[in-house]
């Protein structure tokens, strides 16, 4: 499934993946760094994401205000994202302009300014981003559940960081963090699109081969013990809608059990799309939708599973029906999970889950940007060739017995966190009119 691609490692340690696709005259260029909130120390939560913001603030070659225009001028789009384990920057451009992306990313790998004034301006921008997220009841519940799921591992922290840390992190903290983690030996470059591989390799070497590697000793991550006993967390806030979230520790992305859990998730709550630039499909035949929504105990149910470097979370978020209650819904949820633990999933149901994943991958492959995404994303956890290339074959090899074992191993009611968003119905929205002047 991982169509022909070329991979190599530069002498400075940078991994490069090139995939020719000649369907449209576009190229997508992704630079991945192995740094995310997982690498943050106490007191510096959110620093990975803040560094990502600062990477848009200029170098000598592309000063602030020039950088952002350079890609747009050529008809491209670009952005960046920070997650638990990685930070990624991408540019998708008309093929004839792709050299700009290589020039830009090689430049900001080592030459970003981190100007003090820009740091302070961005501090308030990021706090604004944090406040926007806190407006959402689901976000507030998810944050509380995530924190409750881990005692020591940085996966307990939000990628955006805590407001306290965002107010205390200083310019030099950011710059040191950048120097430490942004180096070719900590990066994967993935390029897909309308190019000739030999010519692109020459360009990659031209822009990246001379950047020296930087070696640092990674701090040792605390060992997170399995959850001992079920945990609960309640969040109270405005609104009329109650939400229930149930979270379990999940296997790491490279673990074969991850794929079994992916199918289990399809069967239980509907298929999760691993594509970044292509939506998923509906979940109305999933067991939890049938059990909870069709019986009017809930109005929606969604599962969530992410590939991560260390064991992270599998969670199910349920929006309660106004006439229902937490206990009734949780009891029904538990019965459905127990059914997966006690009985074999029928082969037909398993095959449907596999076909859903196959269809979603096909939709994602319409998009050059998504294809480049997959190469770098898979390399963050495993090998693209093995992980993505064998994805469908691995899914097809999973048996009903695998699913039952995984349901028993990971969906343990004694090793989970149950979160409840309890709405405060007393707070009502009101309009205030003003004259214009």
């Amino acid at each position, binding site marked *: 499934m991982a169509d022909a691609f070329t991979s190599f490692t530069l002498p400075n340690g940078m991994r490069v993946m090139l995939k020719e696709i000649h369907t449209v005259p576009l190229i997508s260029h992704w630079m991945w760094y192995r740094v995310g909130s997982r690498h943050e120390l106490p007191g510096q939560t959110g620093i990975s994401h803040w560094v990502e913001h600062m990477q848009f603030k200029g170098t000598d070659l592309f000063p602030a205000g020039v950088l952002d225009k350079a890609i747009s001028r050529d008809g491209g789009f670009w952005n960046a994202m920070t997650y638990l384990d990685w930070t990624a920057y991408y540019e998708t451009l008309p093929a004839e302009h792709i050299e700009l992306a290589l020039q830009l990313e090689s430049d900001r790998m080592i030459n970003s300014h981190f100007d003090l004034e820009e740091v302070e301006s961005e501090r308030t921008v990021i706090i604004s981003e944090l*406040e926007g997220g806190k407006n959402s009841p689901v976000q507030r519940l998810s944050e509380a559940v995530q924190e409750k799921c881990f005692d020591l591992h940085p996966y307990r922290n939000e990628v955006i960081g805590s407001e306290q840390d965002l107010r205390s992190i200083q310019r030099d903290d950011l710059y040191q963090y950048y120097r430490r983690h942004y180096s070719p030996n900590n990066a994967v470059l993935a390029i897909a699109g309308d190019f000739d591989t030999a010519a692109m390799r020459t360009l990659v070497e031209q822009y990246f081969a001379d950047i020296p590697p930087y070696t640092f000793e990674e701090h040792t991550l605390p060992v997170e013990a399995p959850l001992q006993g079920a945990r609960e967390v309640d969040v109270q806030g405005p609104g009329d809608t109650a939400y229930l979230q149930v979270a379990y520790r999940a296997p790491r992305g490279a673990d074969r059990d991850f794929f079994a859990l992916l199918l289990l998730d399809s069967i239980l709550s509907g298929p999760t799309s691993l594509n970044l630039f292509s939506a998923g499909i509906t979940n109305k035949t999933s067991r939890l939708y049938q059990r909870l929504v069709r019986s009017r105990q809930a109005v929606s149910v969604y599962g969530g599973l992410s590939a991560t470097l260390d064991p992270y979370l599998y969670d199910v978020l349920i929006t309660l029906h106004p006439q229902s209650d937490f206990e009734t819904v949780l009891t029904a949820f538990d019965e459905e999970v127990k059914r997966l633990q006690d009985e074999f999933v029928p082969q037909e149901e398993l095959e449907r889950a596999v076909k859903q994943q196959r269809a979603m991958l*096909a939709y994602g492959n319409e998009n050059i940007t998504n294809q480049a995404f997959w190469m770098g994303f898979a390399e963050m956890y495993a090998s693209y060739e093995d992980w993505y290339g064998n994805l469908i074959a691995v899914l097809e090899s999973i048996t009903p017995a695998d699913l039952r074992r995984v349901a028993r191993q990971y969906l343990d009611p004694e090793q989970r966190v149950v979160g409840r968003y309890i709405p405060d119905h007393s707070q009502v929205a009101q309009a205030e009119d003003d004259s214009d002047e």
Partner: protein
Amino acid sequence: MNDLLEQYRSLPSSTDIHRSALSNGITVLMRPNRNSAAVSLAGYLSAGSLFDPMEKLGLADFTAQALKYGTANYTFQQIYDLLESCGANLGYSASIHNTNFSGRCLSEDLPLLLELLRESLTQPTFPDEEVGMLKDQLLTSLQIRAQDTRAMAANTFDQLLYGSHVYGLPTEGELETVQQITPQDLRDFHNAHYGPRGMVIAVTGDINIPAVLTLLETTLGGWLNPDQSAEALLAVPSGPRTGERRHITIPGKYQTDLVMGTLGPARTADDYLKAVLGNNILGQFGLMGRIGDVVRDQAGLAYHASTSLHATSLCGAWEVHAGVNPANLEQAIELIRKELDRFRTIPVYPEELADSKANLIGGLPVSLESNAGVAYLLLRIERFDLGLDYLHDFIRTMQSITAEHILAAARRYLDLDRLVIASAGPPLVKN
């Protein structure tokens, strides 16, 4: 210019777009993409929320969403078993003028997708039990909307901008109006407004045009509804006479969402593309254009601050959006107002003009790389009568636009004496 057109020869044009009509008049547009393993379809018919009775606002959208909840030949369960078993999607929603649909599937499953499209469009039964379940979901989503600062600011903006015009009403309705809607209302709405007249369908991706045409004729070509209502004629919204401002206080929130703006050009107006180019400079280019530069980069007031242009065949709205800390709301409004004033007073700079032209023209292949992106382009071409060579015309027109054209469009539409300001979030901070 010819070199530029040659550079974009791979874009959809009259050379590879198929357009025809089924025997009942449904317009069909297709463009194959044999590099894909999937098919996308999209379309619309003239059954929008403009037909909603005031006491039952949300009826068109409710009807659209209930189409797959049971038909003459399939139950809810059977429809979703068929769709989800092959990883396909089929969705409906209403907008003001139309009911819209979209779907996608692996190419081997297109006959199934079209069969379910036919069933749900032409023979829905709106079973009481299923409609009741959907109604609960819609009512909950309206409760969630009431807590969503961005949605509430947007709705309030529409109310202030369009007043009593149907454009000022929420397509999804209100709690009390959706509460009134019965299964029989859905059946009546379907009988009165769904039919082949005015319907358009676009199919893109891994398709064989003659084979798909035959399939479409078989599935949809025989559909007739002699009772289908005539298209409604709407007055052109006049907009507010003076500036208006309203804040929706939603307790317990942390950030205020802000929408400011005025009426904009209709999609078919001569100066529409001039406004599009100006809008790119004002609030899109790079990291959200001039507005992003002033509000986010220079003042650090917001994570997002950008502009958008929405247009129908009647008129449009030219909007600025931002999310700010409640304490910074007045400052953000003043910065935006000053920027709008500058935009309508001083011509854009030559470099800005060249940059945004390059951005909008150069970005065409990116926006059209997916099958769905092409399908939606085909629908826009049909709806606004843009011509099958629209993209080539777009490139030519963009190249001809001057700074003076943009200034004229800005002065015509961005009338600061009639500026609408809507916000939603924590209580206003009194300075």
